[in-house]
Every structure is written in C-alpha cells, then in structure tokens.
C-alpha cells in the first residue's frame, strides 16, 4: 500500500506548487476583472488561469484532496470555455471564480496546517457549473460570431456549429466554394476529388450545396460550400480545391492551442531558477554550523601547538582563510533563503479588491514592492500583519464614496502599500491611507484611558489587547485583537518597530521596519531555577527522566558545582544541575528531567526542573558584551513579552569541563 507515506512525501511539493499557482491565479483574476470592466477579452490571463487550475487539479488529485480537485475542476471548466471564446469570461462568472479561488486557498492553508480540509461548498460548485459550457453554448457562440449566409447557416446542425466553434486545437475555420463545371471535370476537378484532397488537409465539417442561377460563373447552377477546420495554409487549400487563394474565406481565426501540459513561458525552469524547500536550506545551514564547530576545534588545536612551541604561522593563515570562507558560505546560503518583497505582497491587490467589495467602498491601490528581498521566514511572519493593516486601512481608513465626496476628496480612497530596503539589515514597509485618520479621543474613551498626547502613545493605545474602534466587530476587521498581534509579530517576535502617523481627515500611515533576516530554530523550552530557557532541538541528543536510583555522586572539590553521574542504559553520564551551574535559586519540588548533549563524542547531562514544550522560536543574538556569556547564544520571546535565554548546552558543557581542567592544572 502506498498510502500515507507517499502523501506526506508529495504534500510539501504540492503546497509549494499550489501556493505558486494560487498566487499567479490571483494576479490573473485581477487582470481579467480589469479587462472585463473595459469590455475587453483577456486571452492571456484566462489562458494562464485555466492552466493554473488545471495544474492545481492535477496536483490535488495526486495527493488525494478531493475538495480541491472539485473546486479546481469547476473553475477549469468555466475557464476552458472562456478560453475557447478568446478569453471572454461572462461578466457574472468573476465572483464565482473568485469565491472558488478563495475556497481553494482556504483548503490549501488547512492542508498546510495539518487541519481537516473542508468539503467543497455545493452551492458554489453549482454556481460554477451553471456558468460552465452548457451543451449548446459553444454552438451558440459560434452562431453569434461566425458570419455565414442564411442559406448555409440554416443547414448546419448543433454539432456542426460546435465543431466550427473550435476546440483549442490550433485550427481555423474556413469556407471554400467549389463551383463544378464540365471544363473543370475535364481537368479532373470534381466535388468528389476536391472533398478527398481537402479532407487530407483538414476536417470537413459540412459540404453545403447551394443553387445559383446558371450563368458564365456557375455554369452548372450549383456551388458547393465546403466548411473546413484546418491548420493548412490557404495556398494549399486553394490548390486542392482548384480555386484562387482569395476564395479561401476565413470564418474563424485559429483557436489558440490549449495544452495544459505545456510549461508556462515564465516558469522557473526557463529562467534558471530552482525552487527549494526552505527546510533543505536550513539543513545546509545546520551542516555548516557543524563545520564552524570543527573550525573552532582546529583553531584551538593550532593554539595548543603554538603553546607547545611549534611554528604555526602557515597553519594560522589557513585557519583564518578558512574562517572567512565559512562566513562567505553562510552568507551565500542566507541569500538563497531570500524572496522578493514583491512576491510577499502579490496577494495584496486581491485582498484589497475583496475588502473594497464587501465594504462597498472604492479603493485605488498603489502597490510598490520595489526590489527589496527578505528572508522567507520573515516574510511568512510579516504577511499576516500586513493583511491586518490593509484590512484596517480599507475598513477604517477608507470612507464610503459619498462621505469622501462631501469631504472634498476623490470618491475612491487611495491606499498605498510600498516597501524598500532601508539598510542592509532592515526593510521598511509602509501602509498609507488617505482616510479620516484615527480619532484618538474616541479611542481613549472606548479604552477608558487618557487621551494619548502623541502618535507614539496613540500606537501604544492601539496595540492594547482587545481594543476595537467599532461597537460591533465588522466582518472584515475582526475584534481588535489584531493590532495587538501586529505589534507582537513585528516588535516582540521579529525585533522590528512600528511607527504611526495619523492626521484627522487626511489619513493614517503605518511604517513597519523589519529585519531582512532572522534565525529561527526548533527549540525545547524548559524551566530551571524558576526561569524558562530554550535549547535548540538540534543540539539535544536525548531527554531522560532522572530517577534518584540512577544517580551516583562523584567526589568534587569545595566551591564547585556538584558533579554526579547518571546511569544511562549502563553508561555513566556526567550530570550537573543547570541551576547550580547558573547560580540560580532552586525550585522546590523533585527534579524531573535531564537534557543530554554530546560534547566531543561524550554525553553530558544537564538536570532541569521541567520540560515545557517544543516550538519554533526566533533567536535574537545578544550583542552587548555585558550579556554575552558562554553557553548563552541569544534571546527569544516565548510569548510573554519577556526575553527568554537561548542556551547552547554543548559549549556550556565544554566550558564546565575546561574550568574543571583549569582547576586541576
């Protein structure tokens, strides 16, 4: 059985591909809407949309996610039909397609979270299938668009019209009139021969005999109108029918070739781009860390050699050079994790469109993503905050058109989202509206606080948990938890900053300054000495229960941390109390767990109070020399607004045993 294993294997790939296609689809949907408003067809966007849906359908089928297959299939049908009509989408199709796109997005997101994927909503599927190609639809379209005299048109059946409408196979429809005559028959040109030769060049839909008054032009009083689907050049057709080239009349231009398998012109492969799962880059970074550790050991070995009197100058040069190369390599890997800010902001237009619609407002979005790049992990964390601010900007920062007119503003509210690289380490993102500004007094009243004196204080008030500026939570702008979450993400989690500028009647601007890259690790959190800590999962070999019966006390000198040994499956592992190493107040109650790390191949165990859990944390390096201590690599925020120390227990173990060695020496 190739069940769950295969699914898991494909799922990552599916999510990446689906995500990309959904983004592309969102963009194309907007361009279709834009064209539709001006009454233009959108051949290219519809084609791309069709392909995106076809791809998503195929991928979803591969991982067996039926609701997505159904939705993509329904969209595909509508789009295929529109594509056949040269990219003309019925005006009433857009909303249904957008709803279906959102439904797919929701389901892809659920899949990514590992949540249950909801069934495809039936009413939506039905709505789409109502738009889809009804049996007579292409035929009707052909009737409307192909100009044929009634004497021919009247003789064509439904299936022939459908044939003439074309099916995206690159053939055009032509009409060739063959006039039989005895002279031609003498040359071997009879309707039977013409039929055969034309049949070899294309598909004859119908041959319609038309009676004409017998004259010099039509000596037999008869004309055969051949309706042909063909990709052959006019000259060949004319030759086959024994007519002049001008007599091959075009009924319908060649329908573009629809081949969903054909790669998209601007797909990654053609640009020399390789899509890589971030986890693979993280893996490379981890391997690099191992290299860095080895380099430190090398450096130490060289220092020891030097201390023993050896001439190590040449060796030292190599070690230095090696260190530089490692730094360069790290930089190169970090750059590979960068994505363009434009990619991150790609969904903003669709979001704004949806919000403007659901709030009946007119919003003109000016999106300027510039050329900045940022770490994918940062982008993933920042984007929800952007969504929230954009929501707020439309919901609170754009007045209804009539109100704007009364205030002497253009009907459509202007929303500007822009970003640029502020420095080599910081990205500045601006979300600016020209709305009514924030009513600080009303806000303060609602929060039961003093009226903030400046914009900084106003921002502080806005980010108080649970604050909302509306009596009832609107459908778009939640319940006021949002601004608090924006602050938590940007400021507390990422170490960025938020600046607010607002002027009554003129608008509100939020400026987010965010680091271009961050270090994210998978970490265990635990308590020790009444304080939480985290340790990277990658450095932990094992977490074991500490049973008093497994512990043996080793003799240790005065004033030193007590050293004990832990019996771990028959092997003696040195065990130290982390709290006594750190001189922390012990917590009352029995000890529970030991975190085992391996230093130079030897296990070493730290006893701690309690394991709290495992989570991804953003590590922020500690730069100030006052707090840069051995074994402490940085700090993180576990969500309480307090810094929590990130420990490197391996170097701590190293430090401990070196200290012991020093004392002995």
């Amino acid at each position, binding site marked *: 059985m190739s069940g769950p294993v295969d699914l898991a294997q494909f799922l990552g790939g599916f999510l990446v591909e689906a995500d990309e296609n959904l983004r592309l689809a969102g963009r194309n949907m907007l361009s279709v809407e834009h064209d539709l408003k001006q009454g233009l067809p959108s051949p290219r966007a519809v084609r791309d949309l069709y392909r995106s849906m076809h791809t998503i359908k195929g991928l979803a089928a591969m991982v067996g996610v039926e609701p997505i297959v159904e939705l993509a299939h329904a969209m595909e049908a509508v789009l295929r039909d529109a594509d056949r009509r040269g990219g003309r989408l019925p005006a009433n199709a857009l909303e249904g397609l957008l709803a279906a796109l959102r439904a797919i997005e929701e389901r892809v997101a659920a899949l990514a979270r590992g949540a249950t994927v909801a069934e495809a909503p039936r009413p939506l599927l039905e709505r789409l299938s109502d738009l889809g190609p009804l049996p007579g639809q292409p035929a009707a379209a052909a009737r409307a668009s192909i100009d044929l005299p009634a004497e021919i048109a009247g003789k064509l059946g439904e299936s022939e019209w459908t044939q003439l409408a074309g099916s995206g196979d690159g053939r055009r429809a032509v009409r060739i009139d063959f006039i039989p005559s005895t002279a031609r028959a003498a040359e071997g040109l009879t309707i039977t021969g013409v039929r055969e030769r034309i049949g070899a060049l294309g598909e004859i839909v119908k041959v319609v005999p038309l009676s004409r008054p017998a004259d010099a032009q039509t000596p037999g009083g008869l004309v055969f109108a051949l309706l042909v689907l063909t990709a052959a050049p006019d000259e060949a057709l004319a030759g086959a029918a024994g007519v002049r080239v001008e007599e091959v009349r075009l009924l319908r231009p060649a329908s573009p070739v629809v081949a969903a398998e054909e790669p998209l012109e601007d797909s990654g492969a053609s640009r020399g781009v390789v899509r890589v799962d971030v986890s693979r880059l993280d893996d490379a970074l981890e391997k690099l860390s191992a290299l860095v550790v080895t380099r430190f050991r090398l450096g130490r070995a060289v220092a020891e050699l030097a201390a023993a009197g050896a001439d190590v100058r040449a060796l030292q040069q190599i070690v230095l050079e090696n260190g530089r190369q490692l730094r360069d390599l790290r930089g190169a890997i970090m750059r590979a994790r960068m994505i363009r800010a434009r990619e991150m902001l790609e969904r903003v237009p669709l979001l704004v469109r949806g919000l403007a619609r659901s709030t009946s407002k007119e919003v003109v979005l000016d999106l300027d993503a510039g050329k900045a790049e940022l770490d994918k992990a940062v982008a993933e964390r920042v984007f929800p905050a952007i969504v929230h601010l954009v929501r707020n900007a439309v919901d609170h920062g754009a007045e209804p058109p009539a109100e704007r007119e009364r205030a002497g503003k253009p009907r459509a509210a202007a929303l500007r989202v822009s970003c640029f690289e502020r420095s080599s380490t910081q990205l500045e993102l601006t979300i600016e509206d020209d709305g009514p500004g924030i009513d600080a007094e009303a806000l303060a009243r609602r929060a039961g606080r003093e009226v903030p004196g400046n914009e900084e204080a106003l921002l502080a008030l806005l980010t108080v948990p649970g604050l909302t500026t509306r009596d009832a939570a609107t459908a778009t702008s939640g319940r006021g938890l949002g601004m608090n979450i924006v602050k938590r993400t*940007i*400021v*507390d989690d*990422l*170490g*960025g*900053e938020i600046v607010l500028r607002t002027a009554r009647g003129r608008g509100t601007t939020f400026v987010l300054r965010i680091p271009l890259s961050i270090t994210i690790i998978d970490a265990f959190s635990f308590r020790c000495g009444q*304080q939480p800590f985290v340790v990277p999962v990658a450095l932990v070999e094992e977490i074991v229960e500490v049973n008093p019966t497994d512990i043996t006390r080793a003799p240790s000198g005065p004033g030193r941390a007590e050293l004990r040994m832990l019996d771990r499956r028959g092997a003696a592992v040195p065990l130290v109390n982390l709290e006594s*190493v*750190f*001189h*922390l107040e012990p917590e009352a109650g029995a000890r529970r767990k030991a975190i085992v790390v391996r230093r130079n191949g030897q296990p070493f165990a730290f006893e701690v109070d309690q394991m709290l859990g495992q989570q991804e944390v953003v590590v*922020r390096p*500690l*730069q*100030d*020399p*006052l*707090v840069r*201590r*051995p*074994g*402490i690599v940085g*700090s993180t*925020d576990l969500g309480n*607004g*307090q*810094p*929590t*120390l990130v420990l490197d227990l391996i170097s701590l173990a190293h430090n401990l045993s070196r200290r012991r060695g020093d004392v002995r020496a």
Partner: protein
Amino acid sequence: MSLLHVLFKVAGAEYALPYSGVLLMESYTGSTRVPGAPPHVAGLMQVRGRVLPVIDLRVRFGLERQPVTPDSRVVVVQAGPRALALLADSAREVVKIDPESYRPAPEMVAESGQGFVKSVAHAGSRLVMLIDLDKVIGEERIHGS
C-alpha cells in the same frame, strides 16, 4: 544655554543625564537574569522590541539591591552603538540645566564613587550628580571574571 536633562533617583540621591543621550524612560517590572553576567547587570528586558541589558544602578554604585517598586524606572540610554537600560528607584523629571554650571565633583566623591560621578550641578536649588555613562555601563569587569 540650558539643556534638558533627565533626573533620576538612586538611594535618595539625585542624578542627571543629558536628555540627548536618553532614548526613553519606562516603568520596570523585572528582567530575565543572565547567568554569568556581572552582578550589576539585573538582566535583560524587552523595550519596544529591543532586548536590552538592564544595569542596576544601586548595585553599580555599591549599594544593596532593592525589590522592584511601582516607582522603579529604567532610563534607556544610547552609548555609541549600544543601547542599555539603567535601573533607578524613580525617574520622572526632565529639567533644564546649563552645562556651564557643571562643576567637577569633589575629589572625595569622585574617588569613593569609582569615577562614576563626573560632575555636579544645580537643578533649581537641588544638587544633582552627573554620571559618567561610559564608566557606569563599562564592561571592564567582564573579561576578568
């Protein structure tokens, strides 16, 4: 010309710092201890998204550590590339002092204060001490520990 100064209190005495070097003042509710850090480092605290070391001025000035009170404040200062939080018993006043009126600290004070007090000045009728920020946040002890 008078310049703005931030006044803060440590163990009953008043100290002043030129406002230009002060980023902000915040109330203080505690910090995360950093094992191995010098004793005058109370720990780390998060201030507007930055994680800063907190220097307990009481301990730095050779006094007993005191429990946190509702009056406890940190004065966040910028010293070159470093930003640090100075923990004081209270800090709420901003006053104007003319730098011309700075007077060198009496020799005895300078000596017993390990050079932390650079000069003295008058804020109105009160005598305040101007601290040598670099000395106070200095890291001279770290490398020896």
